[in-house]
């Protein structure tokens, strides 16, 4: 057992652990390797925990086991039972408790070292940093959880014009307490003041942010927690903590950025919102109704389709206007190469002249066998994973069945809304030939990919190739 407890062995185990984290993380970036990547990272974590348990002089085993048992008892069922739709708030919660742990450890360290007496400067700074960030992360994440879980209202909550001064005040209090401790203050009140002020800060900053921006905020807080873990690592001189924390900090920042971009939001705007600035909240563009549409991105559309068994392309006048037929054909080929069945549903009056879609698709060399007439394909939609509507509007409008007042009432339509999900490619929310609104776009199973059809489809092709 002795060599096992050699610090060098433990350090080596730490190196193995973080190497597994990194390797696992690399796996997580690709859909095919993601599951395995997550497992590998988990193994790395197990090794890190074991290595720590080996540390010479470890004691308090009962308490440790108690803590672990408690955590497991709470964490496992929560993770198992949460509904798929509630995942984001669950992640927020898990992230929050991580931050909470960091803050608690920092507090205890303060107490144990009697206010960092005799510790090098960097230890106190790192620990205080960890305390602040951990506390912000804990409380911020909890607010985010509350909003997503609809315990708190999802809309921005502010104290109006007082928001900015309030935030500033909290920042100043935190800073003051921190500086006082670093300068040698040993009163625990300072530490508690710091924790409370940063907790309030976390709440005050996240409350004014709208529900739509929450995923970005959670990702940001996630990166913060990572940084606080790294700081703890510095203070405790623990490589595993430093590496793992920093990796999360860095990758989390990039990820936050990517997520914000994908949602067409900028991080400064979101955070400014939290600080009472004028960051406008994300909302569906156009449409005078208060119904909301779900946007999607080319890469999501690509992934969704590449994991489908059957995709039905529904071309319409917009495909003709965009002259997207060649790009569409290319997309279909990429999908077929991935083993997806692709059909084209040709509505009798899609486009602006009889046979409009035929002419275009033939030009793009789409095999005749893949073109399906309306009657033939309508039964297929229920077995279709993704219906990709490219610049078609009226011919997919359920109002033709349901709304006797509609000018298209009585026209047969393609029942795309029977398929498992619908992706609609068009430039905005404007109407088709018949000039009527399309309920399909507000269906929870529908997501919109806005933009010129040719450009959108080309992007999807690129994403498919990158998979």
């Amino acid at each position, binding site marked *: 057992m002795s060599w096992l407890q050699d610090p060098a062995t433990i350090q080596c185990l730490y190196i193995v652990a973080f190497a597994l984290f990194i390797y696992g993380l690399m796996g997580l970036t690709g859909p095919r390797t993601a599951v395995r990547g997550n497992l590998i990272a988990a193994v790395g974590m197990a090794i890190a925990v074991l290595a720590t348990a080996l540390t010479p002089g470890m004691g308090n085993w009962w308490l440790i086991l108690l803590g672990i048992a408690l955590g497991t008892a709470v964490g496992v069922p929560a993770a198992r039972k949460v509904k798929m739709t509630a995942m984001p708030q669950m992640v927020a919660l898990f992230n929050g408790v991580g931050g909470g742990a960091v803050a608690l450890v920092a507090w205890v360290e303060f107490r144990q070292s009697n206010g960092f007496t005799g510790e090098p400067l960097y230890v106190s700074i790192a620990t205080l940093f960890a305390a602040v960030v951990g506390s912000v992360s804990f409380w911020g994440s909890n607010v985010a959880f509350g909003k997503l879980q609809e315990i708190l209202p999802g809309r921005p909550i502010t104290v109006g014009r007082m928001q900015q001064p309030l935030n500033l005040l909290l920042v100043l209090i935190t800073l003051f307490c921190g500086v006082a401790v670093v300068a040698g203050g040993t009163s625990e009140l300072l530490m508690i003041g710091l924790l409370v002020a940063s907790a309030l800060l976390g709440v005050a900053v996240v409350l004014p942010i709208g529900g739509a921006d929450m995923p970005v905020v959670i990702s940001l807080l996630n990166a913060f927690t990572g940084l606080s873990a790294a700081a703890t690592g510095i203070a405790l001189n623990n490589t595993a903590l430093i590496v793992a924390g920093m990796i999360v900090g860095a990758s989390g920042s990039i990820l936050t950025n990517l997520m914000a971009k994908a949602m067409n939001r900028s991080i400064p705007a979101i955070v400014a919102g939290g600080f009472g600035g004028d960051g406008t909240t994300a909302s569906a563009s156009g449409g005078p109704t208060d119904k909301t549409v779900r946007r999607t991105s080319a890469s999501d559309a690509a992934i969704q389709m590449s994991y489908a068994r059957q995709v039905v392309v529904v071309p319409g006048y917009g495909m*003709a206007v965009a002259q997207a037929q060649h790009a569409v054909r290319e997309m279909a080929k990429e999908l077929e190469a991935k083993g997806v069945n692709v059909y084209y549903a040709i509505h009798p009056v899609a486009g602006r002249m009889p046979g409009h879609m035929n002419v275009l698709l033939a030009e793009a060399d789409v095999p005749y066998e893949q073109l399906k007439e309306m009657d033939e394909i309508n039964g297929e939609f229920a077995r279709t994973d993704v219906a990709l509507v490219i610049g078609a509007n009226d011919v997919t409008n359920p109002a033709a069945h349901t709304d006797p007042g509609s000018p298209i009432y*009585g026209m047969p339509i393609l029942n795309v809304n029977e398929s498992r999900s619908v992706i609609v490619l068009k430039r905005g929310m404007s109407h088709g030939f018949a000039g009527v609104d399309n309920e399909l776009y507000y269906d929870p199973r529908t997501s919109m990919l806005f933009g010129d059809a040719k450009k959108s489809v080309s992007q999807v092709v690129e994403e498919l190739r990158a998979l």
Partner: protein
Amino acid sequence: MAETQNIAVGVPRESAPGERRVALVPKVVGRLRAAGLDVVVEPGAGGGALMSDWLYEEAGATLGDPWACEIVVKVAAPTPDEIHRLKPGTVLIGFLGTDVEALSTADVHGFAMEAIPRISRAQSMDALSSQSSVAGYLAALLGAQHLTRFYPMLTTAAGTVPPAKVLVLGAGVAGLQALATARRLGAQTTGYDVRPEVAEQVRSVGAKWLDLGIEAIGEGGYARALTDEERAEQVRRLNEAVIGYDVVITTAQVPGRKAPVLVTGDSVTAMRAGSVVVDLAGESGGNCELSVPGEAVVRHDVTIVAPLNLPAGMPEHASELYARNVQALLELLVDQGKLRLDFSDEIVAAACVTRKES
């Protein structure tokens, strides 16, 4: 003998000269039978479309006198002779034309296919569209056939021939189809219409848009007639534009009026020798000054073709599409094998041009 209670649909043989279409095709006969209607076909009705009587019989029709049926479906308007053979109260369906006097005296319900409103619900009955598609397709082929040159560009050991330039004036259903077909064959296509919103549609079939700066938006998606000044200006600008094209296909119509003159004699003189004008408005007087409706003439070394009844040139599919239109209308008029005319229905009301006094 439940069957005898079904009402019967009669399909006469078309009598108009050159009319090779027929109002119902065997495929549609089968569907009508399935829907509980009897079909009586005049022997030889499908002859022009090369569909023999036994194909009809196989589909469930009986050969016999169609004029005795409760419903008579035709393509062209009936001749006075034919009108005499109609029983009072018969439902007559077809392109009945503007002259419905004779019909109304015959005391029949006349449903004119060309009067069906162009609303979304009625698209499956829209015979104007279906026949225009055929006409547009054939017009592009007619141009290719009469042109002394190739449509497509061809680089050969004996030199390169440039692609033909095809201009379509009037980008309605027929015009768009002509544009698409000519482009498929490799021609460089350009479209023009007075309705500016059509520009996007012209581009959507891969053609360029000729912008002359004259707009005339009428009602119901049709064009209105132009004022005299507008017309003069249009013709002047078209005169200039037309010269550069190898094939000019004209489809400009304004409902119920003589077709506007778009290609003057002067334009024709200025066109390159060997070029072609295909005038689809021949029936309503022609869009080209030099057109001789129903003939192909050469003037100033330019061939001018003004076919009458172009859809009859592709009788099987033209008939098939027409028959499907008729079938859709019948489904509206007949309920469970019985005639049920619901004049509160927008389509029924609009399509009915004469009504039996009841």
